[in-house]
């Protein structure tokens, strides 16, 4: 594997933020909770903090190693390879789902007569080129596009401010508690807990940079932007429209605008989806390529980027039959995702802690024996 790649914490944080925003920014966060979705988003962010701390702890216990190496160090070749295969399959599934979201959005809202596979193909060519350029270039792309996304989100808020009706949020939490908890769980698994994929990339994190700070800042800033985007959508659309629209951010920007000065600002939201989607799919593709390279003991993961892109190309049109099924499948997604996002990292973390403490304990007893010998002499 190519080990001379490094990534700084700013680039890494930008990648996590962009990954978190991913397709969630256009899908509007916890829209299925209606006007109380902001509570679901806050709950999801709060629940994701301990989880990302576990991810960061795994990285700090094995600095310089990616998750594929860590699993083999901790569990041996067979069990480690099984875990690696699960992670690769998960990244294939997630990547194809995100590409499908993107291509559905493009073909439903803009290019109705263009075949979906052509949209996917063009998108994947860009992503494959980015992944082939390496994690450092991906980080640079992340930091440049993060500035643009931030500017666009706040510009749309300023432009649509006069259309906002803040009474749309009232009464607060008048729904059954499960209507708030279920979207919170959905939000937790998509996108916050998906940051497990960064365990494949952050072996390249510079030694002086803390994985805790990187993860925490990334998830908090990404979650904050999602929350702001949700509040904008809810204030403009209101409860019924929010519940019935598949792409609330697109809908919001479509109906808002300052008369005669700025119309048709929905193209800005499309730019958001392009930029954040590219980062998310590139991380999935990177994880796939790196995982496969590790499983098959191939030195350079970059040689597997193109076949991984082609696998994503093959999987994304069949990942769900229709665009509507993509949204309904999101409710089932958590059952597939939770074992990968929570169970496997927990296993890795607990085993890593036990092994590290044993090693430290072993070192300590050796030191004691040496001291006793010195004293005896």
């Amino acid at each position, binding site marked *: 594997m190519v080990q001379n790649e490094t990534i700084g914490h700013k680039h890494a944080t930008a990648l996590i933020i962009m990954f978190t925003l991913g397709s969630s920014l256009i899908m509007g966060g916890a829209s299925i909770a209606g006007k109380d979705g902001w509570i679901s988003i806050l709950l999801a962010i709060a629940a994701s903090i301990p989880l990302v701390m576990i991810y960061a702890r795994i990285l700090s216990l094995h600095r310089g190693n990616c998750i594929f190496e860590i699993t083999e160090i901790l569990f041996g070749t067979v069990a480690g390879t099984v875990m690696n295969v699960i992670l690769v399959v998960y990244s294939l*599934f997630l990547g194809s789902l995100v590409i499908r979201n993107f291509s559905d959005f493009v073909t439903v809202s803009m290019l109705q007569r263009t*075949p979906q*596979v*052509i949209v996917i*193909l063009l998108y994947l060519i860009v992503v494959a080129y980015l992944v082939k350029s390496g994690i450092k270039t991906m980080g640079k792309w992340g930091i440049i596009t993060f500035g643009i996304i931030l500017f666009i989100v706040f510009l749309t808020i300023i432009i649509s401010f006069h259309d906002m009706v803040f009474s749309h949020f009232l009464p607060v939490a008048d729904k059954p508690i499960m209507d708030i908890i279920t979207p919170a769980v959905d939000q937790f698994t998509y996108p916050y807990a998906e940051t497990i994929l960064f365990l494949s990339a952050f072996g390249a994190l510079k030694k002086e940079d803390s994985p805790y700070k990187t993860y925490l800042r990334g998830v908090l800033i990404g979650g904050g932007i999602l929350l702001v985007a949700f509040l904008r959508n809810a204030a403009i659309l209101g409860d019924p429209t929010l519940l019935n629209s598949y792409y609330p951010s697109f809908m919001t920007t479509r109906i808002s605008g300052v008369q005669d000065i700025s119309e048709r600002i929905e193209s800005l939201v499309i730019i958001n989806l392009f930029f954040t989607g590219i980062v998310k799919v590139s991380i999935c593709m990177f994880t796939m390529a790196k995982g*496969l390279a590790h499983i*098959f*003991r*191939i030195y350079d993961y970059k*040689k*597997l980027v*193109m*076949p*991984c892109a*082609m*696998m994503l*190309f*093959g*999987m994304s*049109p*069949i*990942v*769900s*039959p229709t665009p509507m*099924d993509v949204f309904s*499948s999101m409710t*089932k*997604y958590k059952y*597939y995702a939770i074992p990968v996002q929570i169970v496997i990292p927990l296993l890795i973390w607990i085993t890593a802690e036990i092994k590290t403490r044993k090693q430290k304990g072993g070192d300590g007893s050796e030191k004691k024996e040496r001291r006793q010998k010195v004293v005896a002499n």
Partner: protein
Amino acid sequence: MPEAAIIIVMVYALVFFIDYLPLLRSQKTKEVWLYGCMMLISLILVLLVCFGVDVPSPFLY
């Protein structure tokens, strides 16, 4: 979408000549087999979709 199939086959041919052929010449057996299998699987899946075959999703359905 059979028209799209023509473009897709051309793109796959391009990938074959630009990316796969140099690998084939380098005689790295593992890479060649893995690359070849993945390329073939994805091409079959995409062509099935292009010609309207209802391929069931391996993940959710």
